């Protein structure tokens, strides 16, 4: 039987109270949202907080709103809510692509986008999605609020820029015209972490030229956040199969996968190339089909 070590428990009713509780209980206190990463780690003693601050009652962080050219997502928005949102799927198909393959429907009823990003697991799908969408994240502390680009959120595996006495409150995805996006993942079985995955977003000009593009990779050691050489190869070009192949080749070269129970290095590199190619191809198709946002 796996039971976490003893800890104290407090429930926050709003963000200010959560910040107060973090301050009061000090460096060994942790926020708990859906709990599907933290509780398994606590069962195995990989994490051993002295206090858990339960933020599941923070309805103020459960929202999806379109404002000022951005889609604003509250950090406590559950995976299932994102997947149910027609607006999210229409503006950012990549989010629904990823959500459909994150864990399983029952887990998605509990897990949150904020929890996923703050866990900073290198194999986590929404982190790649947020890199690809050039997300901004909003972090609140007792001294006020600050906004960071996604590339500055993760400092390394399981390490983020959210300080111990702060809380991630919001994720913002910029909405731009003539956009398309897609996520492609290979997993060993339904609901597993990625062996490898690739996400891409493309913004085209009126004549179909790739004006801008981002490519992200999951679980294959892409430290730079996005595959910049592959992006450079695509920018300013008209979409073509040769170009997609070249982008895949460059992305695979620039990642650094490790061999583990999910597969050897050459297989993962092969996946990085193939999945990049598929994601960019589909993102271009969607951008060309007049996807708004």
């Amino acid at each position, binding site marked *: *039987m*796996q*039971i*976490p*070590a*003893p*800890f*104290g*428990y407090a*429930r926050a009713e709003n963000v200010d109270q959560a910040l107060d509780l973090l301050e009061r209980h000090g460096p060994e206190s942790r926020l*708990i949202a859906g*709990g*599907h990463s933290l*509780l*398994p780690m606590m*069962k195995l003693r990989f994490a051993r907080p002295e206090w*858990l601050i*339960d933020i*599941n009652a923070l309805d103020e962080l459960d929202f999806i709103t379109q404002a000022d050219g951005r889609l604003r997502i509250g950090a406590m928005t559950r995976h*299932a809510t994102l997947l149910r949102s027609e607006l999210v799927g229409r503006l950012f198909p990549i989010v629904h692509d990823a959500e459909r393959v994150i*864990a*399983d*429907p*029952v*887990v998605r*009823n*509990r897990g949150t986008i904020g929890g996923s990003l703050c866990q900073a697991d290198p194999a986590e799908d929404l982190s790649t999605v947020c890199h690809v969408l050039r997300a901004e994240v909003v972090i609140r502390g007792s001294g006020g609020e600050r906004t960071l680009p996604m590339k500055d959120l993760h400092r390394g595996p399981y390490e983020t820029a959210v300080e111990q006495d702060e809380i991630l409150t919001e994720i913002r995805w910029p909405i731009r015209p003539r956009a398309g996006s897609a996520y492609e993942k290979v997993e060993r079985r*339904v*609901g597993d972490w990625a062996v490898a995955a690739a996400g891409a977003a493309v913004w085209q000009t009126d004549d179909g030229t790739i004006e801008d593009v981002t490519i992200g990779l999951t679980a294959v050691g892409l430290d730079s956040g996005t595959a910049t050489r592959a992006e450079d190869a695509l920018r300013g070009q008209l979409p073509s199969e040769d170009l997609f192949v070249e982008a895949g080749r460059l992305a695979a070269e620039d990642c650094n996968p490790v061999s583990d129970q999910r597969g050897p290095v050459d297989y993962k590199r092969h996946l990085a190339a193939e999945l990049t190619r598929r994601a960019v191809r589909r993102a271009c198709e969607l951008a060309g089909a007049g996807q708004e946002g």
Partner: protein
Amino acid sequence: MQVTMTVNGAEVSHDIEPRVLLVHFIRDVLALTGTHWGCDTSNCGLCVVLLDGEPVKSCTMLAMMADGHAVRTVEGPAQDGTLDPVQQGFMEEHGLQCGFCTPGMLMTSRALLDSNPNPSEQEIREAISGQICRCTGYATIVRSVQWAAAHPAEPDSADSDQPVTDSEVSA
């Protein structure tokens, strides 16, 4: 710490350690052992219960996190000895073999039919995709849910006849 929640319509309140998981609260404190406890890692789905009508894996929730909420376990759906259509469906279509995964499968199926009374086969398979049947009896589980969808409970099911026809049970 005091935890108070509604379980199958009745309020329960107990003093527990905060580290008690919901599955153990249900099984060990409330003695409702219909909910099974399996992998402990939110992979197998044996421990699924409904939290405010939505299926959740109770091995990966603290009991404290259900405080103030409504929990429904496999002991809930049958009313006065009348089986819920989902339970009846599992009987009619041989939806269980060893029975280990059954409580979780029943609760997920109940939640699916509550929100989508006529699911497609694909929707049923997607709904139970986070749950493992170690007998690999998925085909009959899907048929059981389809049976339940085709035989919804009467509005006042407590007084109505069971939605059963013996002729549908094969030898």
